[in-house]
């Protein structure tokens, strides 16, 4: 029987951060991964931020496999064949460095290899089937390898959004369809020059576009188009509860996104070299379960630690993994692996940006449930684009008249002045309450 200081289930950003932190402190760590290699099953938009990873691997950008340094970020409000754009480009994003596009298959391998170089033992192509218990405390995992029981003082559960181990632990039941979004994505390859020209970039610069509106066909969701070195990442994510109601096939939704004139002209001539899909935890703070117990901690997507408003998941995963690793190191020093000892991890999360950011948007989930998604994700974007079109079309009517009509149509969309004020107030409370 093998016994280790810690076993980490899942070699994504959360698990690798935890394993690296513990291995650096001299603990014996097993890093389990069900894929052929770390990242094999993983997917994100994806944007990687500097700050949280820098705390774990200083100056990582000098060696990590990154795609493009983002100097421009855009939000597009999509109408049927129209778009209203809000964007920000700034040379300051180059110093201090802010964020990059990346690909999880490349990045996760690099990051997990950091943990392995620090001494973590990689055990890949191995599924953790169940937790092992002794006297009510978790003492390791049973894997699908022959004689595959792994014993450890601490088990770190970083098994991703589906977190079958978290469910076995009973800390969360099944996620509800309104607590997760399904994202489908394509990696569309284009010559580098085309990307630079179409997005107005040079060298290593990159741009991001997030789009909301009629492209999700009345469903709560978001689309994204990111520039990589020689490809574009195009995807769309919608809340599973809305997807169920719509009876749309997710890949048809993506195909229709590709037909939007503003998108079509950016991707045309490209070759799709990969289609992918993944769930995104979007339950917000209320969905975050208990984070530690006797002999275990849970991190990253498995604990619903995602700020869906700001498309941040990977950095919350890495920071929560680091915190869990630090709590494990302290617990090892004390020789105490009880819930009381590991609660230091819960406190670190509570005091950090993770809980604060999730708390900031905790009302948004309720708002999205309360308000018809068609109103927010279809009718308002439609009205906004119609108003912009009207204001910018010269047809002999006075600007004052047009403005009056624009305000009138926005009020009408909301169902009257009072409803517009209520909706505005609810929205404000949801993101600032």
């Amino acid at each position: 029987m093998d016994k280790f200081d810690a076993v980490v289930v899942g070699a994504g950003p959360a698990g690798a951060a935890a394993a690296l932190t513990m291995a650096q402190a001299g603990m014996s760590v097993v890093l389990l991964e069900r894929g052929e290699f770390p990242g094999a099953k993983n997917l994100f938009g994806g944007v990687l931020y500097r700050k949280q990873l820098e705390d774990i691997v200083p100056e990582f950008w000098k060696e990590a496999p990154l795609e493009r340094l983002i100097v421009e970020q855009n939000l597009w409000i999509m109408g049927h064949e129209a778009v209203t754009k809000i964007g920000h480009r700034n040379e300051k994003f180059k110093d201090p460095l802010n964020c990059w596009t990346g690909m999880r298959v490349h990045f996760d391998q690099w990051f997990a290899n950091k943990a392995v170089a620090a001494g973590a033992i990689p055990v890949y192509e191995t599924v953790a089937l169940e937790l092992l218990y002794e006297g009510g405390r978790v003492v390791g995992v049973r894997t699908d390898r022959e004689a595959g029981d792994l014993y450890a003082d601490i088990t770190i559960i970083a098994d991703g959004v589906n977190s079958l181990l978290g469910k076995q632990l009973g800390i969360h039941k099944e996620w509800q369809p309104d607590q997760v979004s399904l994202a489908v994505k394509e990696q569309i390859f284009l010559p580098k020059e085309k990307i630079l020209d179409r997005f107005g970039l040079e060298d290593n610069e990159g741009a991001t576009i997030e789009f909301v509106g009629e492209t999700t066909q009345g469903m709560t969701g978001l689309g994204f188009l990111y520039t990589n070195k020689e490809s574009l990442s195009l995807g769309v994510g919608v809340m599973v509860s809305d997807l169920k109601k719509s009876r749309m096939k997710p890949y048809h939704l993506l195909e229709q996104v590709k037909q939007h004139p503003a998108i079509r002209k950016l991707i045309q001539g490209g070759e799709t070299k990969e289609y992918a899909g993944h769930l995104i935890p979007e339950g917000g703070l209320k969905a975050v379960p208990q984070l530690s117990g006797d002999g275990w901690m849970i991190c990253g997507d498995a604990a619903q630690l995602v700020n869906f408003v700001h498309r941040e998941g990977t950095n919350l995963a890495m920071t929560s993994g680091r915190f869990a690793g630090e709590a494990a190191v302290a617990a090892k020093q004390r020789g105490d692996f009880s819930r009381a000892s590991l609660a230091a991890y819960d406190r670190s999360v509570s005091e950090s940006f993770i809980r604060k950011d999730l708390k900031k948007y905790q009302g948004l989930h309720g708002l999205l449930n309360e308000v018809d998604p068609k109103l927010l994700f279809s009718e308002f974007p439609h009205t906004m684009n119609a108003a912009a079109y009207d204001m910018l079309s010269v047809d002999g009517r006075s600007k004052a008249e047009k403005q009056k009509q624009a305000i009138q149509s926005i009020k009408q969309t909301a169902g009257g002045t009072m409803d517009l004020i209520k909706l505005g107030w609810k929205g404000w409370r949801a993101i600032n309450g």
Partner: protein
Amino acid sequence: MSEKGTIKGSSIEEKLFTIRYKVDDISHLIIKDQQVCVKCETKECNDFCPADVYHWRELTTHVAFENCIECGTCRIGCPDANIEWVYPKGGYGITYKFG
């Protein structure tokens, strides 16, 4: 604007063809009770699955598990929680090239 389904790479078969699979002999997705599917009014798994795994034919839900991209939507989305969903065996299933 091009018609739906006529662009290269736009069909689900072409999309799934871009993914590398190592397929196991046995399914990691199991319909717990086919009678529940018979009574299911929506059969919505046939629509919301991003990899076209589920097909209703001859009063049975057929499971093309070899197409599965392991997202978990069906486990959460099935109105009757009638899908037993586990991961493929270690090293099996999808391997993304980019992610």
